[in-house]
């Protein structure tokens, strides 16, 4: 049994303990929220800070709830254990309607506030880089200038089993995505076979690519570097190989690269699933059924996957 006794007057001991516990919990929650920023890759797009701030907020609230509840459990485990031969019953409390209504209302208000705040953040993200899904069968040639605020684009992003191909407005093709920093860029996401997903963790952005639809998608990189672009929607046998890099560079470097690459002849681009598929064939095509990888895209600049990426 604990020291708290139900009585008329305020129980000073209980109030002190609860105050200390809540204060401590608030400090821990704040520390967790601060710590949460380090769990992410670097912030490399204009969307990233918003996502990280929102996550830190929820980590803080979540930590407060988690440590509050589990701290309570710890307290109970320490002080409300039955002795070995103690067969007596606990305090016969059947409930407390006021308390129950309170803990229905408070979570309701809390999630309502979180949801409203998240909705605002989402609207903000939408203005940073709108996306629009065009219905199945829409003529792609009618999609010119669907994001009038974009500085660059539209760049066609073509996903296949299992390779990426990028076609720039001047006709240059590459296997790695080159983007100028701090420029809003518009993509047309296209899949030629199954579902894929355009996922750049450093940008905190992800968009599924639906075969039969064309999705207009915009974003603004804010940090120079090489960032991983991963396929995040399961797409078959060599799904995990289906990644490439986004090279974010200064505007001048980007312009140079475009000009230089335009002069290069077309050659087979990166085809990351191929080596595993060849290995499989060399071993007598053992394993379970898979479609063969699509032929590698013909590009002007296949890029170099051996250069280490930043995130």
């Amino acid at each position, binding site marked *: 049994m604990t020291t708290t006794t139900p009585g008329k007057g305020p129980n000073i001991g209980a109030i002190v303990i609860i105050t200390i516990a809540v204060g401590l919990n608030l400090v821990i929650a704040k520390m967790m929220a601060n710590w949460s920023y380090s*769990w*992410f890759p670097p912030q490399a797009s204009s969307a990233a800070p918003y*996502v990280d701030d929102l*996550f830190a907020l*929820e*980590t803080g609230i*979540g930590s407060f709830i988690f440590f509050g*509840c*589990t701290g309570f*459990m710890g307290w*109970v485990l320490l002080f409300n*254990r039955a002795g070995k031969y*103690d067969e007596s*019953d*606990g*305090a*016969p*409390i*059947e*409930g407390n309607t006021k308390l*129950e209504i309170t803990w*229905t209302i408070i*979570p*309701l208000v809390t*999630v309502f506030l979180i*949801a409203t705040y*998240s*909705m605002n*953040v*989402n*609207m903000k*993200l*939408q203005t940073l880089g709108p996306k629009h899904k065009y219905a*199945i*069968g829409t003529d792609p040639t009618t999609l010119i200038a669907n994001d009038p605020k974009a500085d660059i684009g539209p760049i066609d992003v073509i996903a296949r089993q299992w390779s990426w191909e990028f076609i720039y407005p001047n006709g240059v093709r590459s296997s790695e995505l080159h983007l100028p920093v701090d420029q809003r860029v518009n993509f047309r996401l296209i899949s030629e076979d*199954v*579902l894929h997903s355009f*996922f750049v*963790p450093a940008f*905190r952005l*992800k968009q599924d690519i*639906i*075969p039969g*639809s064309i*999705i207009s998608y915009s974003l603004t990189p804010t940090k120079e570097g090489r960032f991983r672009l*991963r*396929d*995040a929607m*399961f797409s*078959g*046998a060599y*799904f*995990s190989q289906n*990644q490439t890099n986004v090279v974010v560079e200064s505007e001048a470097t980007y312009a140079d690269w475009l000009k230089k690459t335009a002069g290069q002849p077309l050659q087979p681009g990166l085809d990351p699933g191929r080596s595993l598929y060849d290995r*499989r064939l060399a071993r007598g095509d053992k*394993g*379970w*059924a898979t*479609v063969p990888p699509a032929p590698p895209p013909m590009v002007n600049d296949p890029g170099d996957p051996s250069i280490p*990426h930043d995130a």
Partner: protein
Amino acid sequence: MTITNYDPRILKAPHPVPGAPDNWKRFFSFNTDAKVIGIQYIVTSLFFLLVGGLLAMIVRGELITPPADLVDPSVYNGLYTMHGTVMLFLFLFPILNGFNNLLIPTMIGAPDMAFPKLNAAAFWLVPVFATVLMGSFFAPGGPASSGWWSYPPMSLQNPLGHFINGQFLWILAVALSGISSIMGAVNFVTTIIRMRAPGMGFFKMPIFVWTAWAAQTIQLIGLPPLTGGAVMLLFDLSFGTSFFRPEGGGDPVLFQHFFWFYSHPAVYVLVLPVFGIFSELFPVYARKPLFGYKFVAIASFGITFLSMIVWAHHMFYTGTPNWMRHIFMFTTMLIAVPTGVKVFAWLGTLWQGNLRLNTPMLFCLGGLFNFIFAGITGVMLATVPIDIHVGNTAFVVAHFHYVIFNTIGFGVFAGIYHWFPKFTGRMYYEGLGKVHFVLTFIGATLNWLPLHWAGLLGMPRRVASYDPEFAIWNVLGSIGAFMLGVASIPFILNMVSSWARGPQAPPNPWRAIGLEWLLPSPPPAENFQDDIPTVISEPYGYGLGHPLVEDEEFYVRRSLEA
């Protein structure tokens, strides 16, 4: 005095003669006794827990190193697909139906289910579709390997072009599983509505019965659309239609709606009975009434209702329009409210209790601890901007395993230990049980806690290989997974040896309050037979000093004499 109106079919059903020695053969027959069927379900599903666990350990073995080096990636994909399918359709759904079979009739004082033959048929479908699913390992081209979502067009690719292929058998097995579940759900709901003991109004039912009812309601509403979607997928795969084939004008995203309309609520089908188990066990081992019984009971149906309107949160990044994402974000977060009511009620039940930490209580406390964590990551995943980053990454894998194993699995183990004496008539060994708990808790935490960070850093789910920066999290995860494999040893040892030669269990070893504890251990066929107690109090009257039923002493004495 007593004219009982039994359904004559129940009396004619092939029960072992009451009082006759138990015969192990009844577990291999088309027996219509719910208690036999319950044990059939539980043992079958525990076998498939081992199968699914073995598949999981191969998957984790592949992921212990960054490159795809243990198995061919195509094999890896098939293994993780089958892992998910086996764990859901052959472990979790059947084991909870096993609990429903054991507990619903005994807790409400019914002699059996409303439709005993339908009940047995529903069970015997499990081995049938299990055979279909396991047989798909030997299909040309191997088993289904498009994930348990089976999203088209990937699932429609059928590389070898055979009519009978892994995906075909997978859809068939899932459809059969759906039929079995519907049969079960009709039975459970009818039993709960029609066959409660005299005096047991809805607000005198144990919470497990409430949650089972709420869960089976989801099955009744949710499974048909999944079956509809599966039929359409099967037609696309095998009969040349193009519902989901973009090249024929179909819409692949439509399947996702069908799929998630059931498959998100499916999680609540699994977790609700576990909430029921928590609500049963905390009062027993804290020796206190359940805090706010009525709130907890109603919250179950709150979850049922909300679970029907949240499915599109799985599709925030598929091109779903913003208004829809916002609506589904709100509804999803609202689920935190009824769930929170339950969590706080359990905490309130523990407060000032007299806690006894035996194995079932440890699993309950561990499950509650993990569930609070899983609930918080769940709200994060419901937040559109965060989900766009962490969706389809290891973070999601970590979150749902925290729900599905670290909460539901823990609750299932708690329930097994708690009701083991009642339905086998034997006590389990406490020491082995505690070893099982400690290994399971450490293993489960080690397995899935680190994966949250891998996901935040951007490691996609379902990958056979990954960039080296994710290695540390995956090594930890794999060690945890192998530890969970080891944890099954004390569990199996305990169950087998206790059932074979454990000490005889008294009718009520935990001094628990509930109709099932007024029966002998194990309960006879027909439970209370033609003398069903009249319920006069709310359940969980620990420390309140009033009896649960009229003439309680009579029933207690009868159970002791049996």
